[in-house]
């Protein structure tokens, strides 16, 4: 007797979120799995919407800075910087050299802090708790510096139209240079503990792949693009940011135009090293002079679109003034928005066990998406 048996199996559907340890912030993932393999992913957003841009458009020029912090409270510097640059362009203000240097210094410290937070989160997803604690330990030093300078560890509200809120506090530069000296040693430690770690290599190499075409076509920038070997960094192209005077390298990783979890981690570790180099150069030769110029008169009618390289990629701020007490329109474009759209591609075809690792490796901040 011969018989044939066909086993029909449907895809299983599960929903994760809005709150789940796998997810960076409130969001929903609807996942269809074929056994243990992720077959299809749908993303639900909008759960943390705060009407940020509308609030800024109802605020005064100065109040706008505080709202910009909420774009990503952990990396407040970048949102503030994009906003004040846009206002300054419309008002045709020339920012003092010292203020420009302090802004870059804060941006690079924030970049290191954000990358350390990213690395800590990735390490946690593979239960590499010791390394995760090391990243947190080093990040604390930067948050201490922020506290020393601004009185806050996050949501700093330190930038102002025309400069920064106040000059550098006593002891800040000495502690910043101490940090810049420690970082190269730490980077060697991170490479050893994470990049050369056998378990991490097995878990992260060839996992969560995104090819160059997907990244470019999806508007990917920053660390994501560089982890696929594309040399894209606003610090190199945008002369108005003021990075041209510093000696630093923009690292790229990824093999054959492909970004995986490993290359996304590697590019950030190398960037920490480069940012520390910039911090050192600024501290050693910080210009003297005023930290701010006061704005006189109204901000005239006009518009501006300013971009900068934040820790995750290209951050843009489009601002329109109608000559009033505050902006008539503000809209940010954030890297997390575009990176989120690439998440399904990175997840599909991967094992369910790698979900948390892949999600964390894309460094998505829902605060930037649900503005």
């Amino acid at each position, binding site marked *: 007797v011969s018989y044939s048996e066909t086993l029909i199996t449907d895809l299983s559907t599960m929903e994760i979120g809005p709150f789940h340890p796998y997810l960076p912030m409130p969001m929903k993932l609807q996942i269809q799995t074929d056994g243990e393999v992720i077959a299809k992913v749908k993303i639900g957003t909008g759960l943390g919407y705060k009407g940020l841009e509308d609030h800024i458009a109802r605020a005064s020029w100065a109040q706008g800075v505080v709202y910009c912090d909420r774009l990503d409270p952990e990396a407040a510097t970048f949102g503030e910087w994009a906003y004040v640059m846009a206002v300054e362009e419309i008002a045709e203000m020339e920012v003092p050299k010292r203020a420009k240097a302090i802004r870059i210094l804060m941006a690079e410290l924030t970049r290191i802090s954000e990358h350390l937070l990213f690395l800590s989160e990735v390490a946690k997803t593979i239960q590499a708790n010791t390394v995760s604690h090391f990243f947190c330990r080093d990040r604390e030093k930067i948050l201490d510096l922020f506290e020393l300078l601004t009185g806050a560890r996050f949501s700093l509200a330190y930038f102002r139209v025309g400069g920064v809120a106040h000059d550098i506090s006593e002891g800040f530069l000495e502690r910043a240079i101490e940090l810049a000296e420690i970082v190269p040693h730490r980077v060697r430690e991170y490479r050893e503990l994470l990049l050369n770690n056998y378990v991490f290599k097995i878990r992260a190499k060839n996992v969560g792949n995104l090819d160059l075409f997907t990244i470019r076509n*999806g508007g990917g920038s920053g660390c994501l693009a560089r982890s696929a070997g594309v040399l894209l960094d606003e610090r190199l192209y945008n002369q108005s940011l003021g990075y041209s005077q510093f000696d630093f390298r923009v690292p790229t990783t990824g093999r054959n135009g492909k970004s995986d979890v490993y290359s996304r981690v590697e590019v950030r570790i190398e960037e920490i090293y480069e940012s520390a180099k910039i911090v050192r150069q600024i501290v050693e030769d910080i210009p003297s002079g005023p930290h701010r110029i006061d704005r006189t008169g109204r901000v005239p009618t006009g518009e501006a679109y300013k971009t900068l390289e934040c820790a995750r990629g290209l951050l843009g701020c489009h601002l329109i003034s109608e000559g009033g007490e505050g902006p008539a329109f503000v809209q940010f474009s954030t890297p997390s928005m575009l990176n989120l759209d690439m998440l399904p591609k990175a997840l599909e075809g991967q094992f369910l066990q790698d979900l948390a690792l892949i999600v964390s490796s894309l460094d998505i901040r829902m605060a930037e998406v649900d503005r």
Partner: protein
Amino acid sequence: VELAAIKSELEKRFSGSILQVRYFGRSKEPVVWVSPGSLFEVSQYIKTNSLHVLDWLESVTASNIGGTVLVTYFLRSTQKPASQLVLRVSYPTHKSSMKLVSLKAVWNAAARFESDIEKKYEMISFGLGSDS
């Protein structure tokens, strides 16, 4: 980027569809105003054939100012990331249902921005690659 070069190039190819070419704000980036009916064709052209291959859609913003929804596309070339071009189109708000020209088929990255604009201004996107 030379304003005159862009203007003559686009006007030669899309006669009557290019409403204005000027500098964006106080920057040296050109902004090209296009009529909605020709937006898709102009976008396709500048992505592949123009003086600068504008293959990177960096951002799309939409503002309701003076009774019109102003949609602004910020574009770059991955080959020459330092130069930018701004594409702009306006839709009057007095119509009962506003239709947004979808550029998803030109730049994939447009999808996320268009979905936000649809929700915010109650617009319906149409054209190649749109859901409707």
